[in-house]
Each structure stands twice: as structure tokens, then as C-alpha cells.
């Protein structure tokens, strides 16, 4: 999204966004702390262990989960593996270029990965079959399908929803041999994080920036919030700045908004 700032947004529209904000109004009539319409569909992809398509306003993103047996990393022999991979493919927007993942894809992957990991949504220590030898590896693959702003929150919603509804075949270890059974079981779930991204435009903080708002924003910050209002992740983005006061305010907004956002998530171990 490096190039985004270069994209043309008409001067008039920019002026409109800014002058509305001065009155605490937004161009699409939302309140400053309102998310756009959220629609979550889970279980669409039959070959995936879990999947979710999230529509967040004009942004659409899909996450698919595949689970398979793998060798653990040498430094964590008694933990399963979680790998998050996000791609901003050119199908989703004229601003995404073909080619191998760039720094925006990498940042998105890593921010979602850390947010999931800090919350321990997937209890990796319960995914060990033979310590040091065989563990479950959970692949979380995120693809943008239509980009209309606030990719992080949409990608995180899709990923959390897919994880919560994932099913995989239980495996048992007998005499040092792993056997896959027919029993379908859900992932062991720890705490469930919600990602809230706040944009700063002028001196206003707004939740869930649309693409047009992103084009005029100074900076963005994402807070990852757990069920107990703890912060399990932060990522500031864009070359803009926040004051101490703005950060405290943004944190409070994020905690407040996270509760509403959380209601959209599918129930744990639902299908």
C-alpha cells in the first residue's frame, strides 16, 4: 500500500471528508467509532479445515485453514506450528501489483500472526503428537478479494472466524506411531483476540477507515484486544504520528469498540 498515497483522490472529496470530520461526521454517515457493515460466512471451502469470508463494507477477504502433521521447529519441540500467510493479490485492487509478496503483505501476515499468537487463540502446546517429532501445523492463509480499506481488521476477523470453526481429524499415538482417526475435532482455543484499527485524520480518531479515508489519513494504529480488555498486540502504521494523549484515547476507543466487534464472531467450536 506504499503507492496508495500516490493514488488520486479528488480534491473536493478530500475536502469533504475533512470538513465533515470537523463536525464529527463521516462521508458514509457512520459515527466516528462505527464499523461498516460486517458479514461473516464460515465453512464455505469444503477442502479447507476451516474457512471464513468476511465482508467489511467494500472490503472482502477470505481465510482458509489447513492442518497437517509436520516436524516441530527445533527450538520448540513441544509446541504445534502456526503459520500465517497473507497476500494482497492484484485481483483485489488495482493498487496491488503482481509478483512475490511485498512489504505490505509481509506486514499484514506478521501483524495477524503476532496478534493470534499473543492471545494464544490456538493452544499450540496441545497440538503435539510426539514431542520433537510430530506436531500439528496450522496454516492460516489469507487472501484479499476486494480491497476497500482496513485490511488488517478484515483479515483478522476472517482468520479468527476460520480458526474458531475449524475441524480436523483427531490423531492418536499408539506405540510411537501416529494414527489418524475419523473423529472430527475442533482446535484447542485459548483467548480470542479482536483487532481494532483506528485512523488519525487531522486531530480526529476514527474507527475502521474506508479506503477513501485511508487516502487522507495521517497515521493508523491497530490494537488487539482480548476478552478481558487486555491489549495483546499493537501495530502503528504509516508515516504519521500520535501524541501520548491520542494514544490513550485510541486505546480506550479500541477497548470500547472491541466488545461490539466481538459479537460478530462465530461461537467457539461452531461449524
Amino acid at each position, binding site marked *: 500500500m506504499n503507492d496508495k498515497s500516490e493514488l488520486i483522490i479528488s480534491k473536493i472529496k478530500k475536502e469533504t471528508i475533512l470538513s465533515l470530520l470537523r463536525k464529527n461526521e463521516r462521508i458514509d454517515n457512520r459515527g466516528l467509532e462505527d464499523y461498516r457493515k460486517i458479514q461473516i460466512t464460515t465453512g464455505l*471451502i469444503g477442502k479447507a479445515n476451516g474457512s471464513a469470508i468476511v465482508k467489511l463494507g467494500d472490503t472482502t477477504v477470505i481465510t*482458509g485453514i489447513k492442518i497437517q502433521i509436520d516436524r516441530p521447529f527445533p527450538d520448540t519441540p513441544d509446541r504445534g506450528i502456526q503459520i500465517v500467510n497473507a497476500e494482497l493479490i492484484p485481483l483485489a485492487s488495482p493498487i496491488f501489483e503482481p509478483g512475490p509478496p511485498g512489504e505490505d503483505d509481509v506486514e499484514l501476515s506478521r501483524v495477524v500472526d503476532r496478534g493470534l499468537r499473543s492471545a494464544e487463540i490456538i493452544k499450540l502446546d496441545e497440538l503435539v503428537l510426539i514431542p520433537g517429532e510430530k506436531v500439528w501445523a496450522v496454516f492460516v*492463509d489469507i487472501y484479499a478479494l476486494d480491497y*476497500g480499506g482496513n485490511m488488517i481488521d478484515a483479515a483478522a476477523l476472517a482468520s479468527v472466524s476460520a480458526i474458531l470453526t475449524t475441524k480436523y481429524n483427531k490423531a492418536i499415538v499408539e506405540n510411537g506411531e501416529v494414527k489418524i482417526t475419523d473423529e472430527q475435532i475442533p482446535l484447542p482455543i485459548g483467548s480470542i483476540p479482536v483487532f481494532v484499527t483506528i485512523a488519525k485524520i487531522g486531530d480526529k480518531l476514527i474507527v475502521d477507515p474506508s479506503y477513501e479515508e485511508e487516502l487522507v489519513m495521517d497515521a493508523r494504529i491497530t490494537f488487539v484486544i482480548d476478552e478481558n480488555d487486555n491489549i495483546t498486540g499493537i501495530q502503528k502504521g504509516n508515516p504519521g504520528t500520535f501524541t501520548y494523549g491520542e494514544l490513550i484515547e485510541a486505546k480506550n476507543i479500541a477497548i470500547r469498540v472491541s466488545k461490539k466487534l466481538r459479537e460478530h464472531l462465530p461461537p467457539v467450536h461452531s461449524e
Partner: protein
Amino acid sequence: MNLKKPVKLLDENGLRTDGRRPDELRPLKIQVGLLKNADGSAYIELGKNKIIVAVYGPREAHPRHVVIPDRAIVRCRYHMAPFSVDERKSPGFSRREIELSKVIREALEPAIFIEEFPRTAIDIFIEVLEADGGTRTASITAASVALADAGIPLKDLVTATAIGKIEGKLVIDLNGLEDQYGEGDMPIAMMPSLGQITLLQADGRFSGEEFEEGLKMAINAIKKIYRVQKEALKRRYIEISKEVLESE
């Protein structure tokens, strides 16, 4: 192709593993214009296949050295999501995806009036969300609808299906199991009204007669799929008309 079959692909009644007759297509659903950013888009479900296609263009072509002075260049990127198949696929492009991007592009390009858009690029992006045999042909079917949705003038839609051979018998529209354990697979794309075949591949083993019969079966099936394509486009035009009327 050469693997031991775990199952019989045709039962005693001549029905296939999913209950179809030899000449029966899988359930087919096409949805047009679902993406907001793309100039044209389509989503296809063919059996368990789920594929999304976006078309951008005609638009400025860059880098500059790809520009062709007297026509548009057509580019195509066919990609399978890592979770679309049984074993997780690595996210990068495989050699198979590179070849299919090429043959899909060559199957679609004959239908486009590329001379009308000199110095531009038409980009076709295909993302396979779930795969179960026949993704290349379903991609072509969906992509030509997405091209139409983008308002790009076409000589005809391009419509595709595959002929297969299982238990020595020709069948239409192989599913994943039949593709893996059958004796032959022959994907075909054509412009149905013009009778022009734009893609033909085969592997496995077909006699000369099977080839001729298979082609005929495919052309019949393609006519059915063509109707579904046109209906999907019609629904989309009605939708747009409504939006326009409502906005006035």
C-alpha cells in the same frame, strides 16, 4: 492417470461416483459483478469447484516495453489458494499454474476485439478457492463472463468443459476423483455461436473415434453451459438497470 483406482468410477447402472449419468454436468452456478474494484468479475461454482475471476482493463499497460502499438495485450494469472486442495499447496506459482495461465489466456484472447484497444492491457486474475477437477475449464467459462461484465466487446463468450474417459467410457465434466483415476482427460473451450474451438488439450489415451465422439459430446455440453453464462449476464444487466433507475 496411472494410479491404482480405489473405487469403481462407473456403477452397474452406468452412473458415476457422484450419481451423474455419463453426459451429465455437475451443478453449475455463475454470479456476475460481485467485486467492486474489478472492472468485471464473476464467481463460478461447478460441483465443488469455487473460483473467482476479476478483470481489469482495458487499462494503461506498464512496464512500457510490454505495450503493443496496434492492439491490447491480454494477461492472465491463474492461481490456486493454498487451502483449495487436499494437501496444502505452497502459495507461490507452480509450473502447472504457469502453464494454465498461458493456455487460459490463449483460450480467451481469440474472443476479444484486441485491435480496438491499442497500447492497453487487459488483465484477468483467477483465484481458485476450491478445486475438484476441471478448474481450468470452469475458469475460462467464468473469465469470459467477467470480460463481458467489464464491458469489453467480445466476438462471443468462451465456454469450456472437459471430456474424460472412465472405465473405458467417455463422460463429460470430470470431477476430481475421475480426473485422478480415469483413463483420459480432454479439456475443450469454444466460442459456441461461432463454432470456434479456442482450447484443446488431452492426456491419457483416446482412440481416433473416441476423440471425434468426445468432441461432439463436449460441444453439446458447452451449449448448456453457454445458456447459464448468458442467464447470469442477463441477471446482472437487470440488476444494474435497477440500480441506475433507482439512483435517478
